[in-house]
Each structure stands twice: as C-alpha cells, then as structure tokens.
C-alpha cells in the first residue's frame, strides 16, 4: 500500500473519469486511487470498476464537500498518511502529484494547494474576480496571500484529515483555509499547470458561482469569529 490516496470526487463524469484515471496511472504511480461517486446518474461507477479502480458510491448526490469528506474518511479507515483531492473532470495534471507528495513528506505544509496562478494569471475575468476577492478576504483575516484559494487540488496530511473527517465545522473549502491558517496550520501553494475540463459541465455555473463566492466571503469575514 502506498502512503497517498488520491480522492477523486466525481458527479456524472463518465466521459472524463477514464482519462483522469489513465493519466494518474501513467504519471503518478506512487499513489492509490479512490473515486467517490457522488450519486451519479450516468456510468461513472461502471467505468471505474471496469478500470479496476475502487469506488465509494453515495446513493444520492450530496455535493463536492461531502464527497471529499467520504474520501478522507475512507483514507483514515484504510490507514493512509496523505490525501490528495483531485478533480474528476480532467482539469488537474497528474504529473504534479509526485511533486506535491514530495513536498508533503518534507513537511512543507499541512495543506498543500496545487496552485495555477502562481505561474501566470489567466482564466475568465469573472472567475478571476471571484478568486481575487476571496484571496483578498483571506489576506485581510490572516495576513497570508493565497493565489489560488479555490483550487480543487489539495494535499492534506493526517492532522488535517482528522479534522475534516469528523467535525461538521471543517469543510475542505476556501473559508476553512483562512480558519486553519489562523489556528496555526500551515498552508503552502505549489505551482501546477491545469487543463480545461474535457467534457460536460462543472459543479459551478454562474448563479452557483456567485452564491459560492458570497457564502465563502461571508464565512471568511464573519462566521469564523463565532466558531
């Protein structure tokens, strides 16, 4: 068994998941893979079984946060030391996994974010504005600049896994980053490159994105003082 479990939350990703798994097998053979099928209505689980990748399947759709949490709980149960959250839509580059794991083993940080925007600033302006705003809020609250707080590529060590697995107050989301930094956890960004998603739609459309942005900012600025 490897030390690292790559958790892939997937909702209706039968078109993408095959490539994602293939990419991981090719470029990241130091890890085990677990797909968390978040109540997909398509053949996501079937594709994974066909490729002999273990699947934890939610019977109904619970959302990204809960899918990741299930993955983390599985990793703890099976005794892994690190979890990497990895998108099922083909955006993430598997060749970065090795670098992230090496950094994690060197104790570079409790949470390592695979960050696209340390390198160059691109992406659609709307997304950029939202990210900039969230980043600004995190900086205001805890003084650390995080270039890509919304990145879905996060490596966490056992200490963070235990937090995320049990308490309903900790969620693997940007607002939690701010809270964890203030609690003394170290969050470090590692530059990675990313692709555009291959097929299908993302979790976040425009109205979802706005709501997400609003909720995250409120949470960073207000709610964490009450925790």
């Amino acid at each position, binding site marked *: 068994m490897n030390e690292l479990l790559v958790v892939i939350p997937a909702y209706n990703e039968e078109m993408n998941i095959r490539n994602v798994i293939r990419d991981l097998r090719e470029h990241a053979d130091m890890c085990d893979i677990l797909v968390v099928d978040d109540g997909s209505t398509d053949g996501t689980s079937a594709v994974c079984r066909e490729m002999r990748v273990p699947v934890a399947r939610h019977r109904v759709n619970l959302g990204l946060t809960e899918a990741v949490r299930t993955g983390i709980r599985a990793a703890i149960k099976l005794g892994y030391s690190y979890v990497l959250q990895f998108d099922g839509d083909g955006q993430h580059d598997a060749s970065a996994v090795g670098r992230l794991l090496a950094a994690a083993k060197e104790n570079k940080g409790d949470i390592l974010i695979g960050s696209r925007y340390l390198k160059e600033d691109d992406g659609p302006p709307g997304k950029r504005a939202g990210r900039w705003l969230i980043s600004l809020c995190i900086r205001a609250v805890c003084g650390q600049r995080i270039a890509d707080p919304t990145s879905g590529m996060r490596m966490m060590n056992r200490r963070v896994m235990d937090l995320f697995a049990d308490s*309903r107050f900790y969620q693997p989301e940007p607002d939690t980053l701010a809270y964890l930094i203030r609690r003394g956890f170290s969050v470090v960004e590692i530059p990675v490159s990313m692709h555009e998603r291959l097929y299908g739609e993302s979790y976040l459309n425009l109205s979802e994105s706005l709501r997400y942005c609003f909720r995250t900012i409120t949470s960073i600025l207000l709610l964490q003082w009450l925790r």
Partner: protein
Amino acid sequence: MSIILRILLLFASVISLLFVQRRLRKSSIRMGDTVVWMFLSGLLVLLSIFPQIAILAAALIGVQSPVNLVYLIILFFLLFQCFLQSLRISELEEKMKQMISDAALSDLADGETNPKPQEKC
C-alpha cells in the same frame, strides 16, 4: 379588540385546532409535534373568548393597543418555531450525510465487485 377580530380569531383558531387534530388522527404528524400548535390554537381561542386578558396585559406592559400584543405574541412564537425548525433540518441533514457516507464506506469495505485500494494503481 373589535368584535369582528374576536370572531375571526375564534374561527381561525378553532379551524386550525380541527385541522391539527385531523392530521394527528391520520398519523401524518407525530404527537409531540402537534402539542405546540394545539397550544397556540388554544391560546388564541382563550384570547378571543376573554379579550380582557389581552387588554389587561397590554396595559401592564405598556402596549398601546391590545391587538398589537396579540400580534407580538404570535410573531414571537412563529419566529421561535422557525428557528427550531432550522435546527431540526440541520440535524437531519447532518445525520443523512453521515448515513450516506457510512453506507458508501461499508460498500467499499465489503464490495465484491470493488477492488481494494491497496492494489497498486
């Protein structure tokens, strides 16, 4: 309180009492959950039959019109109920998420079709 308002209050509270009681008999609501609505309807019946209670209380507290006090009581009651409902929904959601996650994990542990993650990828 005007006589019309009293009649309306009486009418509405009796109707709601009957409604709650019917639901209870059809067992579409749990006994414990009806108590609070029974209580509210009962209070409204009481107030519409004996408006003196509201008048006296309003004078004591310093509310200008007794009917405002009745509204205030209802409003407070409803807000509190609303908060309790939020609390219960949160709890239920949390339990549901936990159960679905647990089910997924136990499937993973004993799934025959599922290769174990220990296998090299």
